[in-house]
């Protein structure tokens, strides 16, 4: 175990890449081998994730203290500018790593049916997984940024080549939006680099943890107005990923056009990177600005919740509805974070995790019906419940999980967000709470139009969900249910770090 334990994060990150490279080397016409290699390469991180789960010490916080990070790998990369290969996990990143491992694997299985250029598809998918893992694992800002950007390319091609009718538009829109965000991030990163020093060596550094030592900042960086600007620069970069109103307009297009498995990854993991970035980078580096900016963040969060739900209700395309529901759900994360209370922060993180699973289910399910009916028009179905009971069962589970029914993880997360944030901003949260009505309304409305009521004869012979698809859905459903009934296993994982984060931020006032 020695080697594995000491390089577990790197292995999780680069094994998929290896698989991708291997796939590219395979000769033409070996599609099945390609699939198997992809499946293996994306499965390998899961046992490693399990290993993380077991070995992770839940009692230490991490956040801004280097020696509290676990599974650390710390090497010099580019000494001349002190870029380091610095990976490590704490309670903020670990759940995300687990989620990434799981969802990516399911995504690979979910793309089994891809016909067109499966080779390139799988290779890109695995590259994408590498990027995502890297983002969650890296503690060096430069490294983080590289992984952050590396994700863009495969995503662009995966949407652009294997996507729906308006794929090109959606792909470039996604690409431009995100790049716009990241160049701002780049500038902020460099500004931080030149205006803070590594306490030990006294040289400039890209090490996030050093950025978090306020003492390491120079006079210019201590100026509050400057800090606000830098914070906003980062915030926009992350807000685009979340996506936060009004930067969310890439999301409906990207989600709708992307192939099923990619929408799953988009909604299941990529969106989390925005909020993760805020937790990992913005908050600890600019605690004072975070406090200053808390109320606007909460308001944005609420706008997301209500506005996203209303938009979802207006959609006639099932996938678009689900996409907007993600907008709504991510609002909870922001609201919870902005509250800066233990319950809120942990709730937000837990919401990231559970939404990752729930929304993945939803997109899988949409994909299932799309594969069979070749359209997603909510009003184009009707009474499917009688034809495909099992499928209906899964959809019902997913929908109720998504509308925050107790017993599913989504409820626990949202409840924690409410409990955590209401004491802080009451009026704002009242609006947020009104979201639960709208969310319920559009979910059930869709459910009714698609599955209930008289059967639409066109789909009398609709084919029932098959074993592979169930294989993708069952684990998610079970986990959602399990963590809904007993959230502690996950919460234990994150609470120490997130509470520490809250304290770190709160300390400045």
């Amino acid at each position, binding site marked *: 175990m020695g080697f594995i334990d000491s390089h577990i994060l790197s292995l999780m990150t680069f094994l998929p890449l290896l698989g991708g490279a291997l796939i590219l080397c395979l000769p033409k016409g070996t599609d099945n081998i390609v699939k198997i290699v992809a499946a293996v390469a994306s499965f390998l991180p899961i046992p490693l994730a399990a290993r993380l789960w077991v070995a992770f010490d839940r009692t230490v916080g991490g956040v801004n203290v280097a020696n509290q990070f676990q599974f650390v790998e710390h090497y010099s990369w580019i000494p001349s500018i002190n870029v380091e290969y610095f990976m490590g996990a704490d309670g903020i990143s670990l759940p995300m790593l687990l989620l990434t491992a799981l969802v990516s694997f399911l995504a690979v299985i979910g793309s089994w049916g891809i016909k067109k250029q499966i080779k390139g598809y799988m290779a890109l998918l695995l590259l994408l997984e590498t990027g995502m893992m890297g983002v969650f694992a890296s503690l060096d800002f430069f490294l983080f940024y590289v992984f952050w950007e590396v994700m863009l390319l495969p995503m662009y091609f995966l949407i652009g080549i294997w996507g729906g009718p308006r794929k090109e538009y959606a792909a470039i829109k996604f690409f431009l939006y995100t790049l716009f965000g990241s160049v701002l991030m780049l500038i902020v990163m460099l500004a931080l680099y030149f205006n803070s020093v590594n306490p030990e060596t006294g040289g400039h550094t890209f090490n996030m943890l050093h950025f978090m030592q306020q003492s390491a900042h120079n006079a210019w960086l201590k100026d509050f107005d400057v800090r606000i600007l830098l914070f906003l620069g980062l915030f926009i970069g992350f807000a685009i990923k979340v996506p936060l109103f009004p930067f969310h*307009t890439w999301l409906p297009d990207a989600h709708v056009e992307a192939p099923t498995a990619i929408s799953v990854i988009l909604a299941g993991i990529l969106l989390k990177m925005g909020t993760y970035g805020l937790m990992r980078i913005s908050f600890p580096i600019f605690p004072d600005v975070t406090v200053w900016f808390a109320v606007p963040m909460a308001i944005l969060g609420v706008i997301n919740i209500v506005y996203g739900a209303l*938009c979802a209700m207006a959609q006639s395309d099932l996938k678009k509805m689900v996409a907007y529901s993600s907008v709504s759900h991510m609002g909870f994360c922001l609201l919870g974070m902005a509250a800066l209370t233990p319950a809120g922060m942990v709730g937000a993180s837990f919401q990231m995790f559970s939404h990752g699973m729930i929304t993945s289910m939803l997109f899988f399910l949409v994909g299932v019906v799309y594969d069979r009916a070749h359209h997603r028009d909510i009003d184009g179905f009707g*009474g499917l419940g009688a034809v495909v009971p099992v499928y209906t069962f899964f959809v019902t589970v997913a929908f109720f999980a998504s509308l925050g*029914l107790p017993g599913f993880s989504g409820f626990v997360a949202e409840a924690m967000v409410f*409990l955590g944030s209401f004491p802080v901003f009451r009026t704002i949260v009242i609006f947020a*709470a*009104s979201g639960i009505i709208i969310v*319920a309304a559009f979910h059930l409305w869709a459910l009714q139009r698609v599955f209930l009521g008289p059967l639409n004869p066109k789909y009398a012979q609709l084919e029932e969900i098959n074993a592979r698809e169930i294989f993708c859905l069952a684990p998610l459903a079970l986990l959602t249910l399990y963590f809904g009934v007993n959230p502690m296993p996950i919460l234990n994982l994150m609470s120490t770090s997130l509470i520490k984060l809250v304290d770190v931020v709160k300390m400045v006032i």
Partner: protein
Amino acid sequence: MIRYAHFIPLLPLAAYFINIAVGRRLPRKGDWVSLGAIGIGLAISIGIFHEVFQAYDPNFKYHVVFPWLDLGGRFVLKAGILIDNVTAVMLVVVCTVSFLVHLFSVGYMHGDPRYSRFFAYLSIFSFSMLGLVLSDSFFFIYIFWELVGLSSYLLIGFWFEKKSAADACKKAFVVNRVGDFGFLLGFLLLFATTGVVGYDEVFQAIREGKIEGTLLTLAGIGIFCGAIGKSAQFPLHVWLPDAMEGPTPVSALIHAATMVAAGVYLVGRVYPIFTPDAFLVIAYIGLITLFISATIALAATDIKKVLAYSTCSQLGYMIMGLGVGGYTAGLAHLTTHAAFKACLFLGSGSVIHAVHTQEITEMGGLWKKMKITAVTFIVATLAIAGVPGFSGFYSKDMILGAALEFGMRNPQHILLFAGALFTAGLTAFYMFRLVILTFFGKPRDHHKYDHAHESPANMWVPLVILAGLSFSFWYSGWFGTLVQKPASAIPVVSAAAHGGVPAAAAAHPAPGATHGAAGVHESAPQAKPHEPASAPPAGEHGAEASHDAHLAHTAHRYAMFSSVGVGTLGIALAFVVYWFGWIDPEKVASSCRPVHTFLRNKWYFDELYEATVIGGTKALSRAMGWFDNNVVDGLVNLVAQIGVWVSWLIGKFDNYVVDGAVNGVADVTIGSGSFFRRFQTGKLYHYVYVLAGGVIIIYLVKVF
């Protein structure tokens, strides 16, 4: 026995999973699993009740707590089981009704393609309902609250092929969510101020004055909103009648006996947190509901709809009872009502099973065909009509008494009593109308009549049992002793002072509120000593304790007589109209056509909501959708527009019509691109011009 309380909900849960997973493959499609689960539950709860009864202690309490969610001590949520007398009674009620309904369904749902699914749903319902009853904190009651909503959704929509059923289940869930919204806010408000979620801790915190005044009133009303939703009180009562689309046993179980009573139970559970103003709101909501729905029931012709509205109305009674301080009365009515209303529904179910219609206009004379059903039905009707000797009389009379007492203390609220009394008459009238039209007179549809037949034993046995439970002697005596009003948690200082605040919550004249406060608090024991110090009005009452007892006594006596009188009146009228036919209902109807149609259309509530709330939301969402596609997505787009405009100013820029955000930016980019490339004419001397121009410009910029 009480140690095994947690099995009561858990067994049905297990049954649910079993039936969902493998129900179809089990012998008898697994109905026995659910039946067994709830049966054992019933046994345990009877055992518990027995223990409680042995103890015979008004303050009996059994409370076990175990941690559920703990963030390093910074944020803790505990789960727990709380059993006191009310809980024990509720357990028995729920389990009994639930068990009987299971039994009934075996016959009623026989041969349904989703038979085992149905029992699974029944089990999940039982689980959530029992969990709701047992839970010890606002948080967990909210959880089960939602789950009950879910199971009701599933059961109403059980025959989802029917569009009406599909609509109904959605409506039920969403309308309930509206109520839950209030519940959530109230609960959040309490949590935000007190920082705890357990009932007792919250009460304690309120005693310590952590939250008081308007805030507390609002919190109370918020919590009560939950009850409004679940218990189908005005203005959220609209879902209940539609919920009758579900199978009849479901209506009996959920929408008559148990779930709808959850609201009442909730109010009773958190009774100590309500401020006088909150109580006023509760009372009047109850009054409005019981009156409106009774009037609607007058004109309804669908047997289940009539029962549904009568349910609303009875729930109104309970709520009002609680609102006017008749804690015991309200819960008593909840208990008795569970029995006889379940009996009525199952009876109607048996009738429908026999004649395959729900329109009473197509029935009649069924007496001869199905005696057992008829008898049990009539017994239950007598109970609901409040005929002495029957359970309904016992409980309803208590409510009226409480109302009258309240009214006598605060004359300007006498309306509460009057309305309730009048409605008691209405109740008697429409219930007997129902009985007569269904079972007596000549059959109006011979074809259906001929096919009618008595239901099998496993259907009429429950009827008999429930009918048996509709006699008052089961309840009188112990109930009043065991179920006693808990002490209000509100420090009376704040309460009275608050009572004095003008224009308090219920929008009633201030003195009214004051007296209301006094009236309610008069019987709160621990309040007395403070009162003289606190507020004069309260003080007066406090001084005349003996007078109070006397007052209460007289109030109840009057209430009893009047209610019996009114009840008889109603019954008599029903006979006059429908039995002897001395008055032709048609004539009456046509003579006051507008009223009739108004009632037939249920006061146009659905239309109203459709027009306002639902339509509004849909419109809003559509607006938002549009806004998102055009405005937000076009925000950058807007920037683009400006960019286009500016660049047009600069260099005769072709005016683009930009669409889409990034396209917008792109258009400006491309546009400015094609603007700049204008210079790239291909003409050499132009190039040199640019060169020279560049030099000169730079130079001039420098010089000046």
